């Protein structure tokens, strides 16, 4: 069986269907995480729900002692880490702690479905349990620490820009993608439960040689992976793999799956391709920070490892690298919002808890039992004495004024999209003033913790220069470097605003846009230069934007207020502000007014 795997790895260009190799990788990941358990963190399984994923999970379950338990991402804090056991506490008259899911899953695998939707407020709990192998509870008048060595199988069903929270991804050693695998490629597991057990028992006996360690370190550095945690994952996965494959040396059959399952999904840049003629004094294609060891012996080791790095990189299909890279880029872009998408902001019983207050029993309120008990406790003796009913005395008297309810808040972030007309007509007229106005607005965004995005349009297209960011320095710099000139592709600009605004809204934030233009549209959607077609296209897209009810302001940058800009703003259903009268402050005020509506 070991030969089977190494064959597959050494012939990436074999005529068999593409999915077969991917499936073997996925299967290997299942075997590895079965061996590693908690020390390996978990697996990120990128796949839409379907038979392939079901089969993969089944294969995993067949190799571990207890089937993985499914824990939905929306599981609240008190269930995750544990909290007061209300019925027991009432029965015994003292606080009793109920174990949380994590403690119940000690030494088990957990399946986290829809990991890309994991709410931000719970991510920390998952990460803490994965890091420490224990849960600490300090809630509801109780404190306890219990073991919780969990292994997380995160099912990532994200499409487009949705990804699980970065903090979670960092702690999942392996990453596989099942989407490209055809159901025909799916196969029985390569390693049996016995193999896994056998490997697990011998994990402590494997020592990793220095060459492999150096190689892994260099590989990580060459792909721009700086986290030590990831490197540790690679080291232990390497050990587990040598045991599974029953080899004594770490050759390509071991290193290549590690690259594919651990390093590549995290790569932040493509390693430099190997240079054909290789003079010995050539510097290796590593980031500048890497230092060369001095001793000759280490140099030799270095060289050897270096060649392996090169050969390993050469093996990788370039398009795979490119797609992975794009994914990595996207996930970085979205780090701040990951997993927080699509929730309704005004929800009364979700979000971050912000304390407890006196309340009443009514729909939509969640009672805080410990707080309620505490409020009722001092009056127990008095109430028992005054209890004149002839029934048996109650063991606990709780009256309406004792009720305490939990308060939650859900922060709704907002994103302000600036779309700047950098066409010739606008640029010459009032570009500098427009930039000044934006800078003032940026300062305002900072104080409101609003994110900003920047779109510029000129010539034939509109470009998203800056995806939503909190970094105003970046916004300012991008703005300053904004080039001008060319036609006005208004329709393309509006379409870009529309696309970005819908994406922003899908992440749970509120989009607002500020369009700075003189309203002269002279480039149509298809790129032809025509004032009539340009205007017509622009008005059509404007209607689409208006239908979404996103709030917006059109700042007319023409010398005199132009009827075209006014027409566009009414089509957009946006507030119209001519720049001659619009000081930066007044733009500011009108946008503030929009946000407060």
């Amino acid at each position, binding site marked *: 069986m070991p030969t089977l795997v190494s064959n597959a790895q050494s012939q990436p260009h074999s005529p068999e269907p593409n999915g077969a190799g991917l499936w073997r990788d996925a299967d290997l990941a299942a075997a590895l995480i079965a061996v590693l358990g908690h020390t390996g963190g978990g697996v990120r399984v990128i796949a839409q729900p379907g038979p392939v994923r079901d089969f993969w999970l089944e294969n995993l379950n067949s190799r571990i002692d207890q089937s993985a338990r499914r824990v939905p991402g929306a599981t609240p804090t008190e269930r995750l880490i544990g909290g007061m056991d209300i019925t027991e506490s009432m029965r015994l008259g*003292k606080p009793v702690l109920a174990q949380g899911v994590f403690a119940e899953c000690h030494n088990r695998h957990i399946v986290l479905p829809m990991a890309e939707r994991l709410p931000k407020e719970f991510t920390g709990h998952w990460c803490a349990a994965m890091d420490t192998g224990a849960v600490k509870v*300090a809630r*509801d*008048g109780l404190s306890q620490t219990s073991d919780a060595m969990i292994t997380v199988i995160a099912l990532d069903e994200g499409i487009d820009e949705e990804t699980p929270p970065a*903090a979670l991804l960092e702690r999942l050693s392996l990453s596989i993608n099942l989407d490209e695998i055809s159901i025909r490629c799916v196969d029985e597991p390569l390693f049996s439960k016995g193999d896994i057990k056998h490997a697990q028992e011998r994990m402590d006996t494997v020592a990793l040689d220095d060459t492999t360690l150096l190689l892994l370190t260099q590989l990580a550095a060459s792909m721009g992976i700086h986290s*030590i945690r990831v490197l540790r994952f690679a080291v232990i996965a390497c050990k587990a793999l040598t045991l599974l494959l029953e080899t004594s040396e770490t050759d390509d059959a071991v290193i290549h799956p590690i690259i594919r399952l651990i390093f590549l999904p995290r790569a932040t840049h493509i390693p430099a391709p190997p240079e054909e003629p290789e003079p010995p004094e050539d510097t290796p294609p*590593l980031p500048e920070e890497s230092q060369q060891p001095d001793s000759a012996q280490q140099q030799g080791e270095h060289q050897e490892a270096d060649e392996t790095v090169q050969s390993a990189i050469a093996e990788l299909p370039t398009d795979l690298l490119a797609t992975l890279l794009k994914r990595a880029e996207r996930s970085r872009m979205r780090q701040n919002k990951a997993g927080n998408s699509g929730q309704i902001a005004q929800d009364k019983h979700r979000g971050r808890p912000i304390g407890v207050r006196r309340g009443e029993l009514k729909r939509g309120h969640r009672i805080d039992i410990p707080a309620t008990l*505490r409020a009722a406790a*001092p009056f127990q003796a008095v109430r028992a004495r005054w209890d004149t009913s002839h029934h048996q005395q109650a063991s606990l008297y709780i009256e309406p004024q004792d009720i305490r309810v939990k308060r939650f808040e859900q922060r709704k972030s907002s994103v302000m999209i600036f779309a700047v007309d950098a066409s010739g007509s606008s640029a010459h007229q009032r570009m500098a003033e427009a930039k000044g106005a934006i800078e003032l607005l940026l300062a305002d965004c900072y104080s409101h*913790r609003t994110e900003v995005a920047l779109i510029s349009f000129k010539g034939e297209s509109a470009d998203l220069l800056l995806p939503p960011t909190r970094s105003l320095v970046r916004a300012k710099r991008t703005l300053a470097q904004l080039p001008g000139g060319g036609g006005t592709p208004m329709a393309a600009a509006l379409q870009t605003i529309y696309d970005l605004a819908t994406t922003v809204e899908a992440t749970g934030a509120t989009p607002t846009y500020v369009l700075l233009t003189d309203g002269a549209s002279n480039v149509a959607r298809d790129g032809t230069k025509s004032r009539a077609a340009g205007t017509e296209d622009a008005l059509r897209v404007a209607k689409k934007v208006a239908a979404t009810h996103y709030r917006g302001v059109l700042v007319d940058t023409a010398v005199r207020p132009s009827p075209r800009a006014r027409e566009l703003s009414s089509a957009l259903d946006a507030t119209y502000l001519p720049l001659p009268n619009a000081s930066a402050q007044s733009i500011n005020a009108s946008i503030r007014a929009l946000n407060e509506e």
Partner: protein
Amino acid sequence: MTVAYPFTAIVGQDDMKLALSIAAVDPSIGGVLVFGERGTGKSTTIRALAQLLPKIAAVKDCPYQCDPQTPSKSLCAQCQKTTPLKSHKIAIPVVDLPLGATEDRVLGALDIEKAIHNGEKAFQPGLLAAANRGFLYIDEVNLLEDHIVDALLDVAASGINVVEREGLSVRHPARFVLVGSGNPEEGELRPQLLDRFGLSLDVRTPRDIPTRVEIIKLRDAFDHDPEGFSKRFSRKEGALRRKIDTARTAVDAVDIPTEILEKAASLCLELGTDGLRGELTLIRSARALAALKGQDVATLQHLKQVALFVLRHRLRRDPMDESSADARVERAIATSLS
């Protein structure tokens, strides 16, 4: 879980180790904030500190570990009434404030069991009581719920925890060194809390290959045999522990020349830091560093070494200023402390 990774076996991260040692020498410096990317060993280093701290004398059976040597007015209510106080040696407490902790456990609250069964109004001390005279560690401090942060801020400033709830009225000493860690990508820290930390630093993973290989090797050896590994480092740990212990007693005697005071003041003036807290922390940190190095006079060199930790999070933030806070502090150090 049982054995923590030894502090002295941590490769690199010298800034973090130095800052934590300084905070251990003089708790009045006001804690350490460690911000950094994922996988830099923030939590490992901070947890390792717990094993390194010297023992202190405390009143026996006191839930607040009162110091029997202090004047009676800074003791807890119970200890003030008791004479004579029975003393014993305890390890300096390092208390974890777990994510999702509720206010009643952090501040302390009415003991439900006693209240319901005996109708007795008893106070159940919280984590702040347990952390008195020690360290309070908050991992992912930027994810902490706001109402907990507010409560913490107040206590950290006054050193006294006042609980007025459920008919209780309790005051107890709660002087602790706040140690926080977090990843800036996951959320910002409120400026008020930021200012509360005496020292702040930004950690990065070491990027050079030999250091990284060394880290992995040591970690691997530790995972393989935690007890054996810790034993290998026990001599080093003991040496550092004694160094900190000696410095703790010597710190008050360290002399600060007027020239150093003036330099510190001019540095803060140059940077326009708000309030006196920065200046005070600067002096205290330089003094603690001198004590740690076994010297009895704080020098300009000490001041230079701590200035970045002390001031980098105290600058007035201008969202439009492109230069980083670190660069500004370094520039000011170059001009004011030459």
